[in-house]
């Protein structure tokens, strides 16, 4: 049984909260598949698109000729909790290093912090996922150190324990690390970082800083 008279607000502001985009709650119909593509916070049932969480309804039209994307956005900490998914860019902290793999805990997914930190999602970077070339010459200790913050991509949901992460791209790798003297390291080149205080150089798999 479906209710057809449910009204979809067409204006770009919420009546009750004029400073926000139209607010929606789970189950509210927000469009039809012939008019929109489903984005985050939206699910499809029998040709209609419905909101799946509380948030602001956002319609985005990209340059392509495809249909605009309708999504439900939540801003700030009141946002929806995030779960790592295949293809997502994550920030992870290195907890353990072994010759064949690096263990880490995932801190954020696609820029959204993991809100419940009591039992964090674990990830591993395997030797073959550290960089795309000269895989046989990788020394893990010349790429990562415990407590380093690493930008990585989720390549698969992995085994029962952890997600499989990869840093085999130019802009992936260590984004924040501290030197042996405890000061922040600054990126020098793709495989080296320099201590901001002592100018001592340390090897790392460095993420290319964005401009």
């Amino acid at each position, binding site marked *: *049984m*479906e*209710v057809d008279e*449910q009204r979809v607000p067409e204006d770009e502001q*919420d009546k*009750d*909260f004029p*400073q*926000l985009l139209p*607010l929606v*709650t*789970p*189950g*509210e*119909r927000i469009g039809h598949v012939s008019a929109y593509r489903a984005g985050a*916070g939206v*699910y499809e*049932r029998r040709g209609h698109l*419905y909101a*799946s*969480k*509380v*948030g602001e309804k956002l319609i985005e039209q990209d340059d392509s000729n495809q249909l605009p994307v309708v999504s439900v956005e*939540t*801003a*700030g*900490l*009141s*946002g*929806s*909790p995030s*779960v790592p*998914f295949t293809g997502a860019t994550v920030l992870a902290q290195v907890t353990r290093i072994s010759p064949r793999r690096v263990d880490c805990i995932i801190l954020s997914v696609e820029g959204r912090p*993991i*809100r*419940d930190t*009591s*039992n*964090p*999602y*674990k990830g591993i970077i395997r030797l073959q996922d550290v960089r795309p070339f000269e895989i046989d010459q990788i020394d893990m200790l010349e790429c990562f150190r415990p407590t380093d913050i690493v930008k990585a991509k989720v390549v698969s*949901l992995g*085994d*029962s*324990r952890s*997600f499989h992460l990869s840093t085999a791209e130019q802009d992936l790798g260590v984004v924040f690390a501290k030197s042996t003297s405890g000061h922040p390291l600054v990126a020098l080149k793709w495989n080296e970082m320099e201590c901001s205080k002592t100018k001592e150089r340390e090897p790392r798999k460095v993420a290319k800083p964005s401009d």
Partner: protein
Amino acid sequence: MDAATYRPLPPDVPPAPTVSFGAAERSDGRTNEDVRDIEMQTGPISSAVGSAFFQIGKTKALSAVYGPRQSMRQARTSSSGAVNIDLKFAPFAVPSRTSMAERERYLVGMLSEAFESIILVERYAKSVIDITCIVLEDDGGVLSACFNAISLAAAHAGLEMTDIVTATSLYCMEVPSDTSQNVVYLSDLTAAEEACWLSSGQCTEMHVGIATSGSSICFLHGTGSLLNPTCAEQLLGRAEEICRAIGKEMRACLKAAYAASQNAAPAKTTATE
């Protein structure tokens, strides 16, 4: 997460005239179809990802949502998430000192099944979502009160779910009478009424959870003889009306809470500047 208390305003329309079904007036002066006053609040527990308080009459339920987080049991390799519901009665929730363990298990079983179908678990791969619910006071209708509290807490936590699902409890029974109209329908019994009516053994009780925008029944639990199909139709019709009203208020409450959280953030940054 700021707690936002939300009290529904009294309706503009005057209450419908009392329809007597031949039963005596209820002890608290309500008509047979009246539901007790409801109060709901989001965010009472700031350490949880989402939380809610739901009160109907004197029955109070408090629910908190934790997670999604990585499953503790390492053997679980599931492409869809698991929902763990834990329900407890506070030691002071009921006047008697009897153990509630069996009743807790019974309620948890029903709630777990319902919420696994309401929450979009396939979007929470390899994760568990822990939901706790505590009954602070039991004055009848505990199942539906817990259901509503969990529903509100899950939405407040930002969990992806198909709909806002609300629940209510309804009862019907045959009253020996000379008139032809001798089936009595009652909404939302208090504990005293429950004890009085259910002990007679003739009463049919029905707990219904309805997805309020899609109008589908997500949850149905009934005991008793149900008398006849007309009674079932009557009960479900009433349930839909009540659930829709609760759902409407819940949506308003969630929107108000979301707007409050958005306004609070810029106000804080200006204060520090």
